[in-house]
């Protein structure tokens, strides 16, 4: 329908987009090669593997967060700008639980005993996730339900308003200082690889949650209804699916997944009420990379981004900005070249 465009125009855009995404990667490669030349081959392989492994660990975390976002985007066609703040709320729930509700004497349990540390996170998730699920359902019922299916601007603004409220409420309560939870330090050593315990636990939990989500969508009745609604809400409704209820659950699940990410961040990194912004745009990049409503795509996209960022941050000085540049250019590039995502998302009519 659009006017025909000469091929060279595409070529120019392609080149520029590749430059945006590729410049950081090229710099990383250059750093990598330069470093290879100096290092002895045995260690260099080990370090490469190390960077790769850290990237995958980081990517697993991204994937859990993005999965919640892509679920909401897939089913409700809503861009949830407050997703990063839901994550932040999860992190602060962990903070309140570990630092305020748990007696001081018990802290050492989580810093010294691996089994207890895992158990602690598991138990805490069991408490936190239902709460966040309810919170998500509340948001959906009160704020988003009236506007689902309307113009895209409305939910965008509502969730932005919500994120402002959340960030600043948490700043009022907790101040904007960074907080951290005392947790297992040390690393799991496998051959030449040293993987931090929090990261390993985090990726294990991510894997479990991801598996749970896949199983749920694949095998449970409700999960099938969720997928049907994502494909076509009208058809689903005709087939007897209570679409409004599905939206409610979807937003609950999505919120809980974001909060899972938050809890996993809280055991690895310091956090403040403003960390949501770090994750939200990356999550957009990931879900566009993976395709709207494509969970496998979100997993692959998350890990891909984690690894790319890992390499950039290790091999390029000033890496943090270039990491972002790579993520955002990748986002725009994917939108232009393959908006349905690498693995193909749910088609828009």
């Amino acid at each position, binding site marked *: 329908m659009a006017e025909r465009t000469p091929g060279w125009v595409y070529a120019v855009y392609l080149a520029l987009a590749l430059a945006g995404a590729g410049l950081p990667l090229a710099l990383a490669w250059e750093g990598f090669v330069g470093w290879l030349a100096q290092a002895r081959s045995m260690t260099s392989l080990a370090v490469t593997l190390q960077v790769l492994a850290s990237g995958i660990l980081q990517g697993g975390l991204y994937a859990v967060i993005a999965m919640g976002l892509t679920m909401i985007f897939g089913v409700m066609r809503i861009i949830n700008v407050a997703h990063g703040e839901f994550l932040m709320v999860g992190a602060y729930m962990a903070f309140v639980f570990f630092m305020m509700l748990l007696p001081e004497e018990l802290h050492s349990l989580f810093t010294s005993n691996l089994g207890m540390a895992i158990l602690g996170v598991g138990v805490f998730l069991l408490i936190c996730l239902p709460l966040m699920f309810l919170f998500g359902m509340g948001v959906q019922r009160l704020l988003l339900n*009236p506007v689902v299916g309307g113009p895209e601007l409305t939910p965008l603004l509502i969730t932005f308003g919500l994120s402002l409220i959340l960030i600043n409420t948490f700043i009022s309560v907790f101040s904007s200082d960074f907080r951290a939870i005392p947790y297992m330090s040390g690393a799991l050593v496998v051959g030449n690889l040293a993987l931090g315990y929090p990261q390993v636990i985090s990726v294990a939990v991510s894997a479990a949650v991801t598996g749970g989500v896949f199983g749920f969508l694949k095998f449970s009745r409700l999960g099938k209804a969720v997928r049907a609604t994502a494909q076509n809400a009208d058809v689903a409704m005709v087939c007897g699916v209570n679409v409004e209820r599905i939206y409610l659950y979807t937003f609950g699940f999505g919120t809980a997944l974001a909060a899972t990410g938050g809890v996993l961040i809280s055991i690895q990194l310091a956090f403040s009420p403003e960390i949501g912004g770090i994750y939200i745009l990356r999550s957009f990049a990931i879900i566009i990379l993976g395709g709207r409503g494509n969970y496998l795509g979100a997993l692959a996209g998350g890990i891909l981004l984690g690894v790319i960022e890992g390499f950039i941050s290790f091999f390029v000085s000033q890496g943090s900005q270039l990491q972002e540049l790579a993520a955002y250019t990748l986002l725009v590039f994917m939108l232009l070249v393959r908006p349905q995502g690498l693995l193909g998302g749910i088609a828009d009519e």
Partner: protein
Amino acid sequence: MSKRALEAPAAPAPASLAEELPAGKAALQLAAIALSLFSFVLWPGLVNVYQISFVFFGLQYVVLASSWNIISGFTGYVSFGHVAFFGIGSYTTAILVAKHGWPWYLTLPLAGLLAVVWAAFIGFPCLRLKGPYFAISMMGLNEVLRVVALSWESLTGGGLGITMPNAENSVSTYYAGLAVAALTVAMCYAIAHSRFGLRLAAIREDETAAEAMGVPTTRYKMYAFMLSAFWPGVIGGIVAYKLLYIEPDSTFFIAITVNMITMAMLGGKGTVLGPVIGAAILYTAQELVWWYIPWLHLIAYGAFIILIVLFVPRGIMGYLIDRGWVAKGVIQ
């Protein structure tokens, strides 16, 4: 109806689509516009520097909200990264003034022009995207610019930003801002009262039908996008010079985008007056809350955005239209 009736004009028709106003009413409107412009012109002579600045930043938002309205309100493509054009203008002026010693007012045409060039460059591929994808792409591209401004230290000073030589500028920037605001609103008025504006609205309402009914949608969307980028670029330059200092995070700041959107929504998007009214009200309210209850400021703002979107999605103008106090349609 006979064939003749279609071809032979029965009576001289008014030149514009809107019914011609009775002479008295038109004169009244003109007088109101002249009076308000006049009072804006007098303002700096009557008040102190802070009060001049107060109105200046209000005018800035009139420009931004009205410009956003062209691509998003009239044409229906939600730009969730419109601050990018403002940022490009800011950096153009700051760099030329601080590093090349240009007089600030000469940088302004270039600031607007570069914003338009960027709009054309990203509009070409992005305006094919629909709905949320367009919105996300705009947001992403704004972040790209922010990170570039952070990283390209030799040009932009990176995170440290750019400081311009000190200057007495509050009155000169005020008048520049006033002129730009007046021109922006005049441009929106001209668009809304032309077939170009009607065709943009047709694209918003049903792009496929518009294309099938002879509207060159691709080209028109591009024009609208470029027009909506120019004045934000210019006002960005003026603001940079007024502040004499800029840095990436507060320049390519997503909250500024949200401000312009919320203002346009509050007043009524897709209308000429809406963004102006919205900017005036919301900006004043923001400043007041900020002044009196700073800790509540952003929480209240978040709640306010939600309330507007949920309860007055068509804004003040929409409310007036529904009441029958303002005529329906693109043209008011």
